[in-house]
């Protein structure tokens, strides 16, 4: 599904050069649930960004379904992100001026779909994360756990095959974190491929496979 070959990422600013990733070779199978762990600054988010087509590797190739995406234009990348990928972030990234339902609809705005269809899919996604009773609330009226569930609903509303989660439980207490992980496990059992960055060993143990990074390199 996702195949990284000899991936290297260097951040260059005018004065410094940071090697964020080096020589990463990673193959993620369909329907796998993989967790990524490592100390802060070791390149976990960078790796997830590359897998999510939000950033391009400096060296090496990133393949999605066997197709190298290195030379894809903005439009093609946007389309892949929209159709194949769902994102979940540590800080939720909900739009405060939009209701829960409108937040969940966002990915559908960037593809052909009618307003009714959007509404229906968003309602279904919210049902799945157990928030059907909060649809017209605004983000500031929700708890952290509820916010993350909205973000999950937004990530799955477009029925992507892959979900990329960057520390989805990082801002939550362990009870809420467990709840979120259960939802992800449920989605995985229904067929979604999931890559999750985490700092929590216990969480990582509940996934199929653990990838450890240290200073930009794979150590496991």
């Amino acid at each position: 599904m996702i195949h990284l070959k000899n991936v290297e990422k260097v951040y260059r600013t005018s004065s410094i050069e940071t090697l964020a990733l080096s020589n990463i070779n990673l193959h993620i199978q369909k329907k796998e649930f993989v967790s990524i762990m490592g100390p802060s600054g070791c390149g976990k988010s960078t790796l997830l960004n590359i897998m999510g087509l939000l950033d391009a590797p400096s060296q090496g190739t990133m393949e999605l379904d066997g197709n190298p995406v290195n030379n894809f234009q903005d439009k093609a990348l946007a389309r892949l992100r929209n159709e194949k990928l769902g994102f979940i972030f540590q800080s939720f990234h909900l739009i405060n001026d939009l209701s829960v339902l409108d937040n969940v609809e966002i990915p559908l705005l960037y593809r052909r779909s009618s307003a009714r269809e959007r509404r229906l899919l968003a309602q279904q996604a919210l049902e799945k994360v157990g928030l059907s009773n909060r649809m017209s609330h605004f983000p500031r009226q929700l708890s952290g756990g509820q916010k993350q569930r909205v973000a999950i609903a937004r990530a799955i509303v477009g029925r992507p095959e892959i979900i990329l989660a960057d520390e989805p439980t990082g801002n939550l207490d362990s009870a809420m974190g467990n709840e979120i992980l259960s939802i992800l496990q449920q989605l995985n059992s229904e067929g979604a491929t999931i890559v999750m960055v985490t700092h929590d060993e216990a969480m990582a143990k509940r996934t199929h496979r653990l990838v450890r990074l240290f200073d930009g390199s794979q150590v496991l």
Partner: protein
Amino acid sequence: MIRHLFKLIWNKKGAHSLLIIEIWASFMVLFGVLSLIIYNFTNYLQPIGFSYDRVWVVDLSNNQDTVGVAAKNQRIFDMISAYTEVESASRMSNNTPFSANQMNNNVTYNKISAVPDMYETDDNLYETLDLKLLAGRWYRKEDQVSKFRPVVLNKVLAEKFFQDENPLGKILSKEDKKPFKVVGIVDTFKAKGEFMSNAPAIFVQNESMSDWVQPILIRTRPGTDATFEARLVKDIAALAPGWGIEVSYMTESRQNRHKLTLIPVIIFLIISGFLLTNVALGLFGILNLNISRRRSEIGLRRAMGATGWNVTLQILGEMWTLSLFSILIGLLFAVQFPLLHVFDLAAGVYLWAMVAALLTIFVIVTLCAWYPGQQAARIHPATALHEE
């Protein structure tokens, strides 16, 4: 997407209220200025109705001299008419073309009453000013014996009184004075110049022009110059010592009239130009600030599948929605002008001004939002999503 933009704006309407007020105010100012410009322009497109090249106006004043004024008037006029340099001369009331004087009077036909500009003239004016007759004839000497005073109307006045009926021969009443009889119709007569509206006008025969000191209009032959003017003044002074004599060229008074109309328009334009520039700069600043505040939202949208162009379009779309909002409020005010007849302007003028103001606002807003929209599209999603 439009619904989405609407929600986004609506839910933030508090934060946007200042912008809405600014755009609304700009719209109103533009509506005012453009109404003025369109009004003057549509007027300008209508023919002035007479020819003023080579026409001079001789303004006389008898000052303290009260002896034999009528005879002196007649002699001066006869002398002027006899010059070879003069093609045609005519006497009329003080409201000569392009002058500051105005005169109007109430005239009634069949309970329809109007207050046209009224010009009392002799029989030559038609020739001196080269008026365009549409029907009938100009009044002449023989009309003086009639029990009616002959008049010539312009087309708008004739239409007001008679609609489709033939106006010729119709009798108009004028309070307790000798009634008027319509003998001819001229097209337009915009005595105050091209920028004047085509207002109702009536020409009335005055058979006793010599009784009062009246302006004399002279159509000179081509090539007549200031030497003749000097001679003219000298000859008049010889006939009527002590009188004030002032010769003006209609081409010059026309220019002065135009300035009188155009200067306020230009001043308005400059003021509103400053105002709009200010609003535009403000808008630009607010948008730039807005975008730096919304980096994570933009990053998120990119992650969810928005292209760079989608992001630009969103910024533009939000501004268009906001403008539409403000303009709708503005239109509520603007439609009052034609509905309540606040000024005596045709509804079409206001309508065009609304359309033009709307388009101008959209152009300005688009220009202001374009660069920030492009900047927003260039935000790197991975970076934007990891700030905060």
